[in-house]
């Protein structure tokens, strides 16, 4: 037993690789590659619309199907990439099992919620479904 780095309990439980690490690794990189062109396009777009600071400029920008589609793809990649990255940070630095587990859950839930809210907002802008009296 002295020669093993695994505890007897870990052996009995069959702990070890969950055989799903490769998927995490790959998606971190797939989303990264997707984000290479999209984030630059996003910053370029922001430079054109943000300084005006008006809602109309954002609405006009999102009226284009290509822009709305690009932004939705970017948001999905951003939040998935962020969720995967924060998961690794939590796993590495939080050692207390209960806090670690709840942080991992919170991270997954929050990132998923942020993605849904953002995408819903883009769709609302694109299809001009802005609530009555809200759009000037």
């Amino acid at each position, binding site marked *: *037993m*002295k020669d*093993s*780095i*695994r*505890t007897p309990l870990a052996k009995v439980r069959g702990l070890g690789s969950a055989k799903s690490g490769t998927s995490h690794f790959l998606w971190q*990189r797939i989303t*990264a*590659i997707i984000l*290479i062109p999209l*984030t630059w396009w996003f*910053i370029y777009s922001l*430079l*054109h619309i*943000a*300084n005006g*600071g008006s*809602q109309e400029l*954002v*609405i006009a920008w*999102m009226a284009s199907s290509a822009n709305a589609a690009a932004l939705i793809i970017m*948001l999905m990649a*951003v*939040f998935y990439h*962020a969720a995967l*990255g*924060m998961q690794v*940070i939590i796993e590495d630095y939080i*050692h207390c099992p209960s806090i670690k587990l709840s942080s991992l859950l919170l991270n997954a839930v929050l*990132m998923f919620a*942020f993605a849904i*809210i*953002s995408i*819903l*907002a*883009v769709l*609302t*802008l694109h299809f001009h479904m*802005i*609530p009555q009296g*809200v*759009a*000037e």
Partner: protein
Amino acid sequence: MTQKNEVFSRPLSPHLTIYRPQLTSMLSILHRITGAALAVGTVVLMGWLWAAAYNPECFTGIHTFLTGIIGRLLLIGWTFAFYFHFCNGIRHLFWDMGKGFEIHVAYRSGWLVIAASLFFTISTWIGALSKAGAF
């Protein structure tokens, strides 16, 4: 955990405290720090989109905040964090392909990442501020 490591005589590698800070390790931790900062920044992105779609008063409020001093500083910080994470991320993608592991190449690419992220940050803000009519 320490106790467990001793009982099972698990090998322990020397930890952070005995190493002199080096460019490679500093950029490594900066990649995580900027990543976490950008994850926080996505909340602003979500809030901005949400406000544009559902709450114009909130949108004006967010815009006023982001063009104020604190807002501008935060945005400049996020801009640098983005460009750093972007450039260093590409460095990581090269490492994933097995390229650039030689010590002198790792240092050269590290300095290149710093230079590029500063250059892109400054260029972006010159563009943004000149569009805003600051100069």
